[in-house]
């Protein structure tokens, strides 16, 4: 049994070789392309995203549900959340299994401040982001000294605590949650800036703006001192520390930035849906967002966006499969980790912690074969 399954595994990994070569070729061409060519592609993608809410696109993409609602949630929200989690998991290499907690904190900040204190959306947005970032620091500062898998369990526990606290407190409305959350004030008389009840398109554009902002900020961060520090921490924390990288401070920063994007996404979501309950923030959502990141290629923004889009869109497009999606994602996670641990579009600089490991089965019969799938050459 062991023999046959290993043989089979080897056969499948060999079948992957052309796919791997093709994606490596595309990604190296992409990196060598001149700056203006890349800008044109980015602009084209933005134009496509702006045109996305049209009915023609919707007829094809989601014939069984309201495409514009789907674009806002889950697609847009998942992309935003996955981009935030990508900073923590993909760039800094820390596994956060309770990311939904920050989405919930942003949502409850919007709900409590908007309903009880009558703040407007544009005042709550920075406040919600700050609260989420602060809670990220409060959670991160004591726990980030832990090893990777312990951190995963602690964050898992934190996600559960937040949901249960929201369920038990009166200020959060208990199990019935909070309703009557105000919409953002409309700007001028443009239809795409009028935040009403029926039309989800303005919210989608708001979210699109946030996504572009987050992409830009995380791009700048990745290519800064802190971003290089994160990569160093991800690859080998002890070596990074010896080289003078302030590992602890950078890890807290990664956590806070990831948390603030989660909070941002939560504020925008709550401003659209009018009512939230603790059931909007299940553990499952944390896992789905992690699936987005891992499936797409953690550390690679384009991959992560693609992963989030697929995870959010496929169940809507194929409604009959919606019941089976978690089953399929569960199996996909196992299969990905076995055959393509770097994700659909692996990050160029990322290699070690998903391939040649330092934990798990180091001395337990691991064959030290460095020519493993996903180990693309450096750009």
């Amino acid at each position: 049994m062991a023999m046959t399954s290993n043989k089979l595994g080897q056969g499948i990994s060999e079948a992957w070789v052309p796919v791997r070569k093709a994606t490596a070729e595309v990604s190296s061409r992409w990196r060598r392309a001149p700056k203006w060519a890349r800008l044109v592609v980015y602009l084209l993608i933005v134009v496509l995203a702006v045109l996305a809410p049209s009915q023609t696109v919707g007829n094809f993409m989601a014939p069984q549900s309201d495409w514009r609602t789907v674009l806002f949630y889950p697609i847009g929200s998942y992309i935003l959340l996955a981009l935030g989690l990508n900073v923590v998991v993909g760039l800094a290499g820390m596994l956060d299994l309770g990311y939904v907690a920050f989405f919930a904190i942003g949502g409850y900040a919007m709900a409590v401040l908007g309903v009880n204190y009558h703040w407007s959306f544009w005042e709550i947005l920075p406040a919600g982001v700050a609260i989420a970032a602060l809670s990220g620091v409060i959670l991160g500062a004591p726990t980030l000294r832990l090893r990777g898998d312990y951190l995963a369990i602690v964050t898992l526990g934190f996600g559960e605590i937040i949901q249960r606290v929201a369920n038990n407190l009166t200020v959060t409305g208990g199990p019935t949650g909070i309703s009557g959350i105000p919409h953002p004030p409309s700007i001028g008389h443009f239809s795409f800036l009028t935040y009403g009840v029926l039309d989800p398109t303005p919210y989608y554009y708001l979210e699109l703006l946030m996504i572009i902002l987050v992409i830009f900020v995380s791009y700048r961060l990745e290519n800064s001192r802190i971003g290089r520090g994160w990569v160093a921490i991800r690859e080998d924390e002890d070596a990074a520390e010896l080289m003078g990288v302030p590992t602890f401070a950078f890890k807290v920063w990664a956590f806070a930035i990831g948390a603030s994007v989660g909070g941002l996404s939560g504020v925008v979501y709550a401003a659209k849906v009018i009512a939230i309950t603790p059931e909007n923030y299940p553990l499952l959502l944390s896992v789905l967002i992690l699936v987005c990141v891992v499936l797409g290629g953690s550390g690679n923004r384009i991959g992560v966006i693609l992963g989030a889009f697929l995870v959010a869109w496929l169940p809507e497009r194929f409604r009959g499969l919606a019941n089976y999606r978690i089953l399929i994602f569960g199996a996909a996670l196992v299969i990905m980790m076995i055959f393509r641990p770097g994700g659909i579009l692996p990050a160029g600089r990322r290699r070690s912690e998903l391939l040649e490991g330092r934990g798990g089965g180091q001395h337990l019969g691991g064959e030290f074969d460095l020519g493993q799938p996903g180990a693309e050459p450096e750009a």
Partner: protein
Amino acid sequence: MHNFVSQIWPSIVDGTTTGAIYALMALGYTLVYGVLRLINFAHSEVFMVGTFASLFTLHALHINYAPGGIEAIAVFAAITIAAMTASGLVAVGVEYVAYRPLRKRNSSSLANLISAIGMSFFLQEVFALRYGRDLIPFPRILQKNVLFHIGNAEVRSDMVLVVASALVMMFILDRFVNGTRLGRGIRAVAQDASTAVLMGVNIDRVITLTFLLGGVMAGVAAMLYGTFYEVTQYNIGFVIGIKGFTAAVLGGIGNIRGALVGGFALGLIETFGGAIFNAQWIDVVAFSVLVLVLLFRPTGILGESLQRARA
């Protein structure tokens, strides 16, 4: 305050009972961690399958009443064996599918954890799709008579069954690991895997055996849970799994006797926390204990005795 004083003895009795189940679950985490240094996230589903296996055995035997005498012994033997077999097989299956291929290519603990999460969701969904997402009741197969009193607390027959079976199973496991040739293999791998391989220990067999033992313990825990709480559900393992893991960390992960101490300690902390605050805060208390232990004493109460401390 008077209210709390009257809760002391009942809290001790309840905490010991739930603690026994946590301790059995903690053994699974601790054994696998000791040998592989990884957290078997899918262990909660091993437990879940065990509860379903004992329920299906009851359905197959058409038992929906509390049998007496010889019949009771036969029924309990049947559901225990069914749960142990099912959980043990699932644990070994998880190792085969989710861990072994990764180990062969020397993947990191992060990849192992993600693979285990995938496995865990896969197993949950198989049961959710087949048997629905609602709570499924167990028939009452044990008359829950009050046997005796400790202080002002009633001690029921099912509590005695839970605590006694858990202690017996843990004693057998302790003897097995510390007193047999196979157990020596487990200890050798836990201490130093590469040297153990050089000394001729068949590492794959030891790992399979470790998962099997953890699964069997989870199966017993599942049978006891079904008898005590009389429900199951596709995601029933999640909270029990976190609690079992917390218990393992609390006692000192990788340490078999630590799992026993951690299980009972967590059960007691939790019920007392519930008595002081409110029953709905029980899980928050348990999670907070996990966070606090990891922060201040990551090696747990008894320390990581099977291998050098790494946290």
